[in-house]
């Protein structure tokens, strides 16, 4: 089990209902965590549209999560 700090932005925050949480999970990779949270919160995003940042850097979806990591799933960006 790994304890993580998760922050939600923009459309993902709206879909989740809160901006951050600390949770303990059995998910090993960022991708697995995304699927767990999608099931929990009924997120309307497919994984094809989401990037992940771990400790404030973009990381591959199969990155292994470590105790205390800050995880942010990045919904589609449309800035500028």
């Amino acid at each position, binding site marked *: 089990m790994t304890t993580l700090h998760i*922050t939600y*932005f*923009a*459309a993902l925050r*709206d879909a989740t209902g809160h901006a951050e949480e600390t949770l303990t999970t059995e998910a090993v990779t*960022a*991708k697995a965590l*995304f699927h767990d949270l999608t099931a929990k919160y009924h997120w309307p995003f*497919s*994984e*094809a*549209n*989401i*990037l*992940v*940042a771990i400790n*404030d*850097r*973009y990381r591959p*979806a199969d990155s292994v999560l470590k105790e205390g990591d800050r995880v*942010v799933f*990045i*919904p*589609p*960006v*449309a*800035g*500028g």
Partner: protein
Amino acid sequence: MSFQLTNQPINPLIESLHPHTGGIVTFEGLVRAINDDREVSSLEYEAYPELALHEGHAIISEVREQFDILEARAIHRAGHLAIGDLAVWIMSAAIHRKEAFEATEYIINAIKARVPIWKKEYYSDGEANWVRCDRCIHGL
């Protein structure tokens, strides 16, 4: 060479340039009154600051390596903006104009693709929506 994120109105700075500067290309992105045929009344930009600054600085470094330029600066707004407000300001300076055009276009394209800043559009009919740009990213 710099990337900034600000909650204040953008104050473009074109000074202290290298005396060999021959061409400056500036891009300004404004809040449009219309998007996808819907009338927009205002816009909210939300940033993930730590990652946005990291990617912004990385983009400026890439441009400096890939193009023969003397200067590159970008400033992106966050917060609530009105129609016509400046949302992003980018400037590249070079000895010759070609490189300045290329660098400025590279920076705005990279910002749109990688810098985590989201746009919520408020419409004149009272609705609001996070703008999606599905073509801009590759997912998990």
